[in-house]
């Protein structure tokens, strides 16, 4: 079932009071202009590997929970 986007978060920004403007679509400005590279893939693996280490060091998860979470992440490498 499709739903509408969430309402804007209530900002606490120290600026003069002024109604918030509508959301502006700036994707073209921010979008990456190049395809994924081998370096991107290497960095993605490192990014996920760091999460795996985070799981290994987690003081609250059980061994079974860690094994399941690590298996999930390894499937995404």
């Amino acid at each position, binding site marked *: 079932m499709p739903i509408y986007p969430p309402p804007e978060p209530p900002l606490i*920004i120290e600026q003069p009071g002024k109604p918030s403007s509508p959301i502006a679509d*700036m994707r073209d400005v921010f979008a990456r202009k190049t395809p994924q590279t081998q370096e991107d893939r290497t960095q993605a693996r490192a990014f996920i590997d760091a999460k795996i280490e985070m799981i290994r060091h987690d003081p*609250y998860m059980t061994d079974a929970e860690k094994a399941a*979470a690590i298996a999930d*992440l390894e499937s995404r490498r």
Partner: protein
Amino acid sequence: MTTDGMLLKGPTPPLKRPHTDTEDHQARFAAISARTPVDEEFRKAFLRSKLRVAQTHPNFGKAARDQAVASLVDRVGKEAAELVTQPRPGGVGEGFFYTPEFKASWGLGTSFYCNFVCPVPPGGSVNTWLYLTATNRSGLGVEAFVSYNGQDNPHFRVFDWARSDPWQTDVPFTSLDNYLTTISSHGNPYPVLPVWNGTWAIGSGTYRNQALLYNNVRLGWDLVYQYDYAATDSQQKTGWIGSWAPIVETFQSLYANTNKMGALDTQLIGSDDNGLWGTWELLSSANSYVRADNAGFQLVFLDPNYAFVVDS
């Protein structure tokens, strides 16, 4: 048993064990030890662990930690000092994780917002990656986060867990003048980047990920990233991914003298199973817990559990 040349006798054996005479097996054990391969990794790990204990002792002040490390280095040499600078990814300097119940307690959509306290530069001993990141509870959402690499200019990056090409937006702070601002908390000004991201169903089995930055010039949110994809409710709500609220994700064993960093005003909103959004609410201690690996960071303050600032 007596020791040659010494008058002092050794202690008697511990009680509750049958015992006659003490036999000398030093030579046999020495021979066995000599045949056992040296495990250098174990030795390094042992040393590294001792250094970490000294460097991150929660009850020691900075001076006492430095003194403890100095004494260890003095005892075991330069190798010890080199070990502490080696990368150690996957730590949590400080931050919050959602409880399992809260992580899954949304219907068709979930959305997250916070102000990342992001000094430029990070200062101190940061010499590799360091992330200020968070998820919105969904298993296939985005991490829209601040990425440090040493003292270089930080970047705002988006890692999309729904994609096979996950690295998307990558913008240096030098291009974020309209988005970086300053807010006060606990009486002090902090440099912040307001970040909002969300994940919600836009059709049957189809979800949308979005990341937005607040434009402080025009006073409105700018959509900087969006991706639509197929997924199931189960994929979004099970598993470990999506469990971390704002955290300082560390890549070194020790941090020292870093500038103040963290997250302020963390809020979340969820929709019910009919697509009706609730209201934005501060992350609470009932819905999350604190994790802080001993990496040298110290709390400047923590507001349970929607804000924290640390330094080292």
